[in-house]
């Protein structure tokens, strides 16, 4: 029987985002909030192993009350318990403060009911920093395996896991003692289409609420703005490039279009250096 924990985040759907060109700020209205896709795959992986070994899955998230919807999606995928860690005191937390909050929560859960595996998505699609998972692992003092794309084996008797991760060299097969912390690629598991009773259970599920005081008494100097050494000095929109010329094949034909393009390319020093070289 395996006890797994997945840490998830609710994020705005960044593929659907629009920026107000005048103010440079995010148009948050109408942008759907979704369960971070990498986290969803991590939950799916946990569900697969729960199926194989029996046991349970706890999911936690640090966020506003709207993040309950993300927890319910995890219940839909097979998680058993969902905890929302929410408090105004957490506002303004950067990745250091966030890893503190999550690590303490994970520690509290582990003390009550020992964990075997902790999973994070490899990065959140809004922050894209990929720092929270490694930060939590370091605080817990547990082995960290990032960019995991396949869990080959979990051996609860001999207390180890074999995980495949992808690096620039190729595939590394890592053996780590349990409990271990993984950050996951989407490949690690496919999102299942939940059985109807599981979907219904998720619709009716009420997550547990943890605050900055209960059940874990957080050190206020390590959370929120106080606990965040980094802060955003300014934001803006990326520079708009000047669009270049376009040649329409329908108008001039393929041959002419290619000729025109080749002419332009050969007028550019960089290209010439490549073609000559």
């Amino acid at each position, binding site marked *: 029987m395996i006890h797994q924990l997945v840490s998830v985040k609710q994020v705005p759907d960044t593929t659907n985002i629009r920026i107000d060109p005048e103010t440079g700020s995010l148009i948050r209205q109408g942008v759907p909030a979704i369960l971070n896709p990498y986290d969803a795959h991590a939950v799916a992986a946990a569900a697969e192993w729960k199926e194989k070994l029996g046991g349970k899955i706890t999911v936690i998230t640090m966020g506003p009350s709207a993040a309950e919807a993300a927890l319910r999606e995890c219940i839909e995928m097979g998680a058993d318990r969902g905890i929302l860690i929410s408090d105004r005191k957490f506002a303004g937390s950067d990745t250091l403060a966030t890893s503190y909050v999550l690590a303490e929560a994970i520690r509290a859960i582990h003390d009550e009911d020992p964990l075997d595996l902790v999973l994070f998505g490899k990065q959140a699609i*809004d922050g894209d920093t990929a720092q929270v998972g*490694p930060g939590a692992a370091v605080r817990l003092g547990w082995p960290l395996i990032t960019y995991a794309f396949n869990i080959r084996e979990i051996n609860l008797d001999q207390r180890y896991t074999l995980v495949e991760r992808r690096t620039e*060299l190729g595939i590394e*097969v890592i053996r780590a003692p349990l409990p271990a912390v993984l950050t996951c690629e989407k490949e690690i598991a496919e999102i299942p289409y939940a059985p109807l009773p599981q979907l219904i259970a998720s619709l009716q599920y009420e997550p547990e609420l943890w605050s900055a005081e209960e059940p874990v008494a957080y050190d206020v100097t390590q959370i929120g703005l106080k606990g965040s050494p980094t*802060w955003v000095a300014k934001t803006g929109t990326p520079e708009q*490039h000047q669009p270049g010329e376009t040649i*329409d094949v329908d108008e001039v034909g393929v041959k002419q279009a*290619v000729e025109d393009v080749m002419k332009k390319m050969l007028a550019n020093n960089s290209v010439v250096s*490549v073609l000559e070289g």
Partner: protein
Amino acid sequence: MTRRFWVFLEQTSGVLHPVAGELLGVACRLRSEIADELEESGDDAIVEGILVGHNVTDLAQQAMQFGADRVYVVDAPPFRHYLNRPYTEALVSLVKKYEPEVFLVGATTLGRDLAGAVATSLKTGLTADTTKLEMGIARKNPNKLLLATRPAFGGNVIATIVCDSRQPQMATVRPRVFDMPPCATKVSGEVIQETIEIPPEMMAVEVVEVIAEEGSKVDIEYADVIVSGGKGLGNPDGFQLIKELADELGGVVGASRAAVDGGWISYAHQVGQTGKTVRPKLYIAAGISGAIQHKVGMQDSDFILAINSDPSAPIFEVATVGIVGDLYEVIPAMIESLRERKGARA
């Protein structure tokens, strides 16, 4: 007082990763940006590299050729192959000993695995995947701070992050975001060997196997010509045509995230925010719509040619020249034209 600008010198199998050179160039520039403060205060500043591995001390020379004044080396068997725990322990110990002001790490798979662990252990701030770094005044701090700029929200927003009140100010940078600095021929500088105790429990994680992947030999980051294919190819076989054009130009094959997610080509070829940042001399995007997550990965290429049948595709906004048409007609015509040209010159 000596203000230290540190760069992690990533090496694998005794080969220094080019990003280390790029970051040494950045560190030297950052140092020059506080010249006024140094003059006023009488402090001095130094660029130092941190090298960790086994039998890698020779690489220190290369680092000095790229601008490091001094290199600290942790050279011992536990560090032969990268593992998070021992490497984190090594860097954290050195930071505590020497108290650098700025610490830069390449945002490679290894770097991203390592930097977060180091920053958290030191309880300091880390900004990931930065695209711009400079020293500037921020928030009533008497000294200039590292202003780290990075894309957020999938590339839709650019944010400048500052870390005050904690040191070192850490940042990771993707390869190829900054140019390689000039490589000096003769250098002098100190190489200091450091010893770090690694108790056995820190070695609990093992690398059991390394399987080289077919695509892993491909390093598109440093290629001069990249021809990329995207969803517009319609099916994975389209990449054969892409490869033909790439071969003709002596370049490599790249891909959009859509093509990689679809399983048409391996992740090693992915260009974009969650893939690789590239700045080749010639970038050809075929059948790629040009969503912002892809654009941020290639928009600084010297010459960009976009081929797409949809005239409203955003890729045309960033292209130097674009062709609106069917890539299955245009690319063969281009290949032919290139071959003719080669034949004529032969």
